[in-house]
C-alpha cells in the first residue's frame, strides 16, 4: 500500500492486474458495451492512481475500487452514454473465463439463457441494476455494497429485493 501511495509503477501494475476483471465486469454489466466498459475501467484505474494518496485504508481496497467504478458508471449513464445491447462481438471480445461443468450439449440453451439474463439486467433501473450486479454477480456483502454506494443498509436490501423480483418476472419462461 505504501508503494502504491508512492506512485510505484510496478505496484500499480500489480493492482491493475489483480482487479481488472472485477472492474471491467461491473462496468460492462452497467454500461452494456465493451468499448465503453473498457474506457470506463481505464478511467477508474487512472482515478485510483490519482487518489491513492487520499485512500485512508479503513476500507478494503477492493471495496474502494467498486465504489469508484460505481461512481464512474453512474456518471457516464447520467451523462447520456447510450446503452447498447451487447452483441455477439462483445461477447467474443471479452475474455470468457472458464465456468465449471461446461456441457457442450447444452451450449445453445445456455447462450440463450445468458442473453436473456443480460437483457433483463440491462432493463433494470440503474440503481437497482448496480445493487444486483454488486450482490449477485460480484458477491459483495450488504455492508460492502452500502459502503461502496454510500447508502443505508436498508436501502441496499430494498433495492436488491425490487431488482430480484423484477428479474423473476422477466425470466418467467426460464423458471419452473
Amino acid at each position, binding site marked *: 500500500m505504501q508503494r502504491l501511495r508512492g506512485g510505484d*509503477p510496478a505496484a*500499480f*501494475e500489480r493492482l*491493475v*492486474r489483480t482487479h*481488472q*476483471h472485477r*472492474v*471491467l*465486469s461491473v462496468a*460492462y454489466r452497467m454500461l452494456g458495451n*465493451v468499448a465503453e466498459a*473498457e474506457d470506463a*475501467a*481505464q478511467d477508474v*484505474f*487512472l482515478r485510483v*492512481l490519482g487518489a491513492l494518496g487520499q485512500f485512508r485504508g479503513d476500507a478494503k481496497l477492493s471495496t474502494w475500487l467498486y465504489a469508484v467504478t460505481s461512481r464512474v458508471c453512474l456518471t457516464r449513464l447520467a451523462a447520456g452514454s447510450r446503452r447498447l445491447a451487447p452483441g455477439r462481438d462483445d461477447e467474443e*471480445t*471479452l*475474455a*470468457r*473465463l472458464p*465456468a465449471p461443468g461446461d456441457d457442450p450439449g447444452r451450449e445453445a440453451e445456455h447462450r440463450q*439463457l*445468458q442473453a436473456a*439474463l*443480460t437483457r433483463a*439486467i440491462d432493463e433494470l433501473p440503474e440503481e437497482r441494476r448496480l445493487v*444486483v450486479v454488486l*450482490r*449477485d*454477480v460480484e458477491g459483495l456483502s*450488504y455492508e460492502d455494497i452500502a459502503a461502496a454506494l454510500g447508502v443505508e443498509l436498508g436501502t441496499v*436490501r430494498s433495492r*436488491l*429485493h425490487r431488482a*430480484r*423480483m423484477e*428479474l*423473476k418476472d422477466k*425470466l418467467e419462461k*426460464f*423458471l*419452473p
Partner: protein
Amino acid sequence: MTCEHAREQLSALLDGALTPDDRAACQLHLDGCRECAREWERFTRTVALVRGLEPVGAPVGFVDRVLEAAWPTPWYRRLARRLFVPLPVKLPLEAAALLFVAVGAVYLFQRVPEQRSEVRERANRQESSQAVGSRPREPSGPVGSLTLAHEAARAHLSGGEAVQREASRPDSRRSTETPASAASQQREATNSPTAPTAHESAAPSQRVPAAALPAAQTAPAQAPPPKAPEQSRLALEKAPSPESPRELPPQGALLGRGLGGRSSESARPDAKQQGRATVSKPLEFGEFGGDTPPAISARLVVQNPKTALPAVVDVVRRLGGTSVSQRVNDGQAIVEARLPGPAYPALVRELRHMGTWSAGDVESSSPETLFLSIRITQ
C-alpha cells in the same frame, strides 16, 4: 405472517439477513402456503440464474493500455517500438522496403536523362524539318555570313577535284561537290538545317560577300577544305558590316552557271564595277528557279558516328545523290545531301543495314529530288 409480508422477506431470507425469529416465522408460512412456496422457488431460481452469469474478463492488452495512459511513453520510444518491434519481423521487411526504394530511385535517375535527351533530339528533328523549306528569315549577325561564306568557298572549288579530295580525306569535316550540282549546293547550303543558324544570325549580307569570293577563289586548290572556312572567316572580317550594305552581282550570275571560277570571276568584275554591295535576303531554292525539293530529316543510330559518316556519304553517292555538307560535333555527325527521289527507298534499305533508321514521311509522292538531312548518332 401474511403472504405479502412473507414475500417481502424472501430476499433477506435467501441472503440470511433475517433474525432467527423472523426467519422461523417466514419459513413456517412458506411451509403452509403453496403459492408463497411456489413464489419462493421461482425467486431462488432467479437469483441462481443471475449468480450463474458467465463472468467476463478484461481483454488482452488492457493492463498495458492502462499503464500507457498512466505513464505515457515518450514519442521516440513509441516510434522505435512501432518501427522495430518485433525485431525479427519488422527489420527484414523494412530493409527490403529500403532496398526497393533505392533501386527504384537509381532506375529513375538513369532513365530521366535518357528521356530528356530523347525529347531534345526529337525537338531538334522537328526544328530542322521545319527549317527546310521554310519561308525566308531575316538575316542577322555575322555568323550566318560565316556559314554562307564557308559554303560558298567550298562551292568554288572545282567539283571533281573537291569530290576526290573529300573522298580521300579521313577528316570528318569535308564537303562533297560536283560541278553539276554546285549551283544547287549553294542553294541547299543556304537552306540546310544549319541554315536556320545562318539565317537567324546571318548579317544582312546573306549573299556571298564579294570580298569573300576572291578569298575563297584564291584559296589554293590543294588547300584542305577546313581551311577554306577559315579563309572565308578572314574574308568575312573584311566583309562589310550590315550597316554598309553592298551590292553583289545577281545571284543568278553566281549560281545559274554553276559555281566555279567563272561565276566568281564574273562576280568580281561586277562587284568591282558596281563598287558597292547591297544586302539581300537569304538564298532560297525558289529564287534560283527550279522546284523546291522535298526535305526529309532523318536519324541514323550507329555505334560510331564518325566511322559511319563516310559510309553514309558513299551510299548517297552510289545512289546518284550528292552530299552537300558534312560535319561532326558532340559525338554526332550530320550529312546533308540531295538524292533522286526514286533512290530513296534503296537508301533507306542500305542505311538500315548500318543502324537504326528513323525518318519523317516524304512530303510529296514520287518526288524527283529529295533533300536529306541525316543525323548520325550513337
